[in-house]
């Protein structure tokens, strides 16, 4: 039996995820918005907001509020799906819910790996000469830029990576959706990521036209 019901541990983890997300939204997001506001003027105090496209800015602020929810829940569902009992790895990789959350988690892991690589290199004596130090210098402050805009910007394209993976599964006939709350939640999150990415792209393009 690999299709399990929601148990006490799942509920605790989900509750913790809610707390983390709410903390992110309430504590960090206003800071990220505030961080961006003083930078919207030149030295004479003139607003340069006209340089921006309004739909694009709206898309940015929608992202600030939506990404924490989508990101934390995707990571949590991915982690819970890995708890025993679970199907074999190959079968798991054909479940759309797991694939969606796995894509998001892997994408985020990749970006954080780059960040950690930079952190490690920057601490060495020759680190300041390394190209990583030059190229990733703004990640020096621990979680400073990462929690704010950077992490949100890095999620560009992740929703469409989910769409691509789903297209491969579906067209190849490898789509093995499971009738469990975990796979359903993963599918809902995957669909959320796709819609969010499409909306964000559309708003950005619209603002330029």
């Amino acid at each position, binding site marked *: 039996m690999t299709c399990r019901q929601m148990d006490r541990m799942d509920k605790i983890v989900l509750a913790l995820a809610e707390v983390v997300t709410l903390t992110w939204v309430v504590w960090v997001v206003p800071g*990220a918005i505030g961080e*961006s*506001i003083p*930078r919207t*003027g*030149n*030295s*004479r105090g003139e607003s*340069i*907001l*006209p*340089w*921006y*496209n*309004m*739909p*694009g*800015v709206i*898309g*940015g602020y929608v*992202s*600030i509020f939506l990404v924490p929810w989508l990101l934390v829940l995707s990571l949590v569902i991915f982690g819970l799906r890995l708890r025993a009992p679970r199907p074999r*790895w*190959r079968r798991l*990789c*054909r479940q759309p819910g797991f694939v969606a959350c796995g*894509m998001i988690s*892997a*994408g985020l892991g990749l970006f954080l790996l*780059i960040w950690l690589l930079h952190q490690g290199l920057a601490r060495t004596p020759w680190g300041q000469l390394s190209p990583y130090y*030059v*190229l*990733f210098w*703004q990640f020096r402050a621990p979680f400073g830029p990462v929690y704010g*805009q950077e992490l*949100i*910007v890095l999620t*560009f*394209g992740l929703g*469409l*990576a*989910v769409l*691509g*993976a789903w*297209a*491969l*599964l579906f*067209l*190849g*006939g*490898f789509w093995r959706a499971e009738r469990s709350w975990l796979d359903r939640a993963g599918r809902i999150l995957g669909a959320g990521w796709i819609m969010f990415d*499409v909306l964000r*792209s*559309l708003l*950005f*393009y*619209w*603002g*330029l*036209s």
Partner: protein
Amino acid sequence: MGRKFQLVDLMVLVLLFAGLFTWYRILAQHGVGVRLYAFVRLGSLIWVPLGYHCPALLVGSLTLTWFWLRPPRACWRKLIVQPGFSACFLVSVWFLVRVVLFVASEGLGRLPIDHGFDARIHFSTWQHRWLLTSAYLFEACGLIVLGGWSLLGMAGLWRPLATVADRLGRMIGAAWILGWWVLLVSDYQEKEWGHAHDAKADGSCRSVCAGSGGDRWCGLALLDLSCLPQAAGHESWRL
């Protein structure tokens, strides 16, 4: 792909290459800012070869997908497990999604809606707008190919064929991933420039970036200074 080369194939090839050369022409006309900034910034230096390299990769992906999908073709189940096909197919799907979104946004842009700002930047032609947004197209292509290949590998569906088409498709996929990596790195360099200006002690020059993802958009806006006569003379843009 074991079939004769037909007239319709030739027509599609001509169409795709015409699109490629049109793209190059637009890039040559409006990408002046890129070349100017290339002298001072690593990020822009990387943009120059990528700006010419990525459209060629895109045409290669579309061409291969076309030849693969023209009947008679193998069933989807056999095609999807070929990494070369899956890479080209994902890029083609992604390109079509982007085209649809772009056309939809062009339609929305014609609606009489006041965005709230009088002096908002307007990129005068659709070619400008397409060029400015194509960076996202290229960047996401590598990410999507990487995701698709990871999925095939982990699900035990990676079955490369010893054919020219599949090998070429794998090479194109690898080139997309490499391009994504380079764009990611150069993007950070773009941001370094913006933050460095923020950090000036006298506050004489601030970054024009604002809002979520502003840095990234700022980097894109720098792609074509010739279409931004107001921006070129703006204090915030001085180096």
